């Protein structure tokens, strides 16, 4: 955990927080949630709004594929310690925007900074060491590695990942044991401990989503970027995923996620950014967004005049 964490307990002990897996309906709002919402209460609900303590700031990001402008974002800020949702219709450029921020794709123009440091041109493999980790829309669990190996892969700064150290087990055995203990803790928290030694290929689709999220946490991130964490997950598991995402914020992490599931968005996010045709068309709290005519027009045109949640 990086010392810059503004809120919440940052020790692995927090992994055992009993509130993390509590059913949503009865979950009391945590301190972290209250803090995040209070900080965002004064922010104007408009595209590009400045946040009191942004962890991620992007400006002038533009990416075109041939003649099609996939992303053209003037300004986006993500508040530290909050859960921010990125929504928008298919083809709005959400995943492309994600890829640009995480270095998996390069923008034609634009700058962005994370934790005050310029991130333009930083290779994707350097993001994790800086505290920024992402998951993928199509789950990338490594099916031919056992679950525990998947987890251990996530730890950064491993001595044994240098080949000359790899030859001498004495140089990495102790660190490996520490990593394994941390991995086991996370597996327990995500209720995957019974699958520990199975190949990840033996997991169900939902369990793979959980594994990918747990593996991402092995990098000790300050910002977790989830690309459609709910895609293809059954309703029961959605509840627990929801709780896990909230748990991240309660531990002081910042979460930015792409999602289509409006239930989830409304339930867990502190702030919502709406994209359409590559642009940010609206920002605000979930309640602001449900009543924003621009959003209803662009994203939910056919539901005009009804609650955002009514049909879902």
């Amino acid at each position: 955990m990086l010392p810059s964490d503004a809120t919440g307990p940052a020790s692995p002990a927090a992994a055992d927080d009993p509130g993390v897996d509590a059913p949503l309906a009865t979950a009391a709002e945590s301190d972290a949630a209250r803090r995040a919402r209070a900080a965002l209460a004064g922010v104007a609900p408009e595209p590009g709004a400045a946040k009191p303590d942004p962890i991620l700031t992007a400006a002038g990001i533009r990416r075109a594929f041939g003649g099609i402008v996939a992303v053209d974002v003037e300004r986006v800020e993500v508040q530290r310690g909050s859960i921010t949702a990125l929504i928008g219709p298919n083809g709005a450029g959400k995943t492309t925007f994600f890829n640009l921020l995480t270095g998996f794709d390069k923008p034609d123009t634009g700058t962005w900074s994370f934790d005050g440091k310029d991130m333009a041109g930083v290779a994707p493999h350097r993001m994790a060491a800086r505290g920024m980790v992402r998951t993928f829309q199509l789950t990338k669990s490594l099916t031919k590695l056992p679950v525990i190996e998947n987890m251990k892969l996530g730890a950064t700064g491993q001595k044994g990942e240098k080949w000359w150290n790899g030859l001498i087990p004495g140089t990495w055995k102790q660190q490996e044991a520490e990593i394994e203990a941390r991995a086991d803790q996370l597996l327990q928290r995500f209720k995957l401990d019974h699958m520990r030694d199975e190949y990840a290929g033996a997991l169900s689709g939902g369990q793979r989503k959980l594994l990918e999220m747990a593996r991402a946490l092995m990098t000790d991130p300050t910002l977790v970027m989830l690309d459609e964490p709910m895609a293809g997950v059954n309703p029961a598991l959605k509840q627990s995923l929801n709780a896990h995402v909230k748990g991240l914020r309660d531990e002081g992490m910042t979460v930015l996620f792409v999602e289509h599931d409006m239930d989830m968005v409304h339930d867990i996010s502190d702030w919502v950014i709406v994209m359409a045709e590559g642009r940010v068309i609206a920002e605000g709290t979930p309640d602001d967004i449900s009543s924003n005519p621009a959003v209803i027009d662009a994203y939910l045109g056919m539901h005009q005049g009804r609650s955002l949640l009514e049909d879902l």
Partner: protein
Amino acid sequence: MDIGAVLETAILQFIGFNACYYAIAAIGLNVQFGYAGLLNFGQAGFMAAGAYGLGQTVQIFEISLWWGLLIGIGYATFLGLLMGVPTLRLRSDYLAIVTIASAEIVRLVVRSVKFRGQFGGTDGLTGFARAYQQVGVDLGLDLAGQYGFWIFTFSGRNLWNLIVGWTLVAIFGTIVWLLMRSPWGRVLKAIREDEDAVRSLGKNVYSYKMQALILGGVIGSFAGMMLALGNATVQPDNFSRDLTFFVLTGLVLGGVAKVTGSIVGPMLFWFIYSFLDSFLRQLIDKPVRIGDFTLIQSTDVGVVVFMIMGVLLVLLMVYRPQGLFGNRKEMAFEGR
């Protein structure tokens, strides 16, 4: 028919010099292909790099043979960089194309008239192995003598080659085994499956792929050095495409991503090859005719053996795709 003699020939090949330097090459190829998923179709090029590095010392540079170890490793590293720098950022198919072409370029360069002064042209290089053989003599081996074990007899020279060769197999086998149990090996296996996932977890995928390519290539160069020392000569046409694909066949036979597979596979390759060859030669000592049509005669055996081996390889892929020692469970999951 003397099936005993057939088996004896086959068993000799099972533990013989060919199996031995194939095994070294396959251990290296396994690092690239088996663990890191890099399609290297140019292992013969790395072997040539090692063999020529060694061969050049005495005849061309007029220095001690042992510098050849460093020169060979240097050549193999350079070749790995040359192949890897432009291709490792691209999809793996490109590496396959580049490696197969590079190995051919290496072979054509070393056999060319233009570089006769450096690589000896089609004659190759000779006269460098004396220092190597002297070590055997110093250790008390009579290189001109005969050594009998059980039902086999080895010449002293052959025995020395086998001792050195299998020692190298043991050394490289242990190195790769250690590496693949380490976090380094874990990163490699993860890259084999999904590069982007590994990248998102903060690993420099490009660097790991390069390390795997060069490590496998350097091990391959030792196979070439062994071949050069064993034959006491380096011939450019030893390093043809056939060599790469025979080594690959041996590896697949044994089972990829397993150290035991990469060692026993090439041994079995030579066992099966030699068994079929001497079996068919005994079976078809005179032409088999149907009326006027000659179905098969002894000069066809060489070709028929490879046809049968091809069929066996296909059957292996269908019924046991993981090879003899591979992990079926590991192979069973598709990269979803």
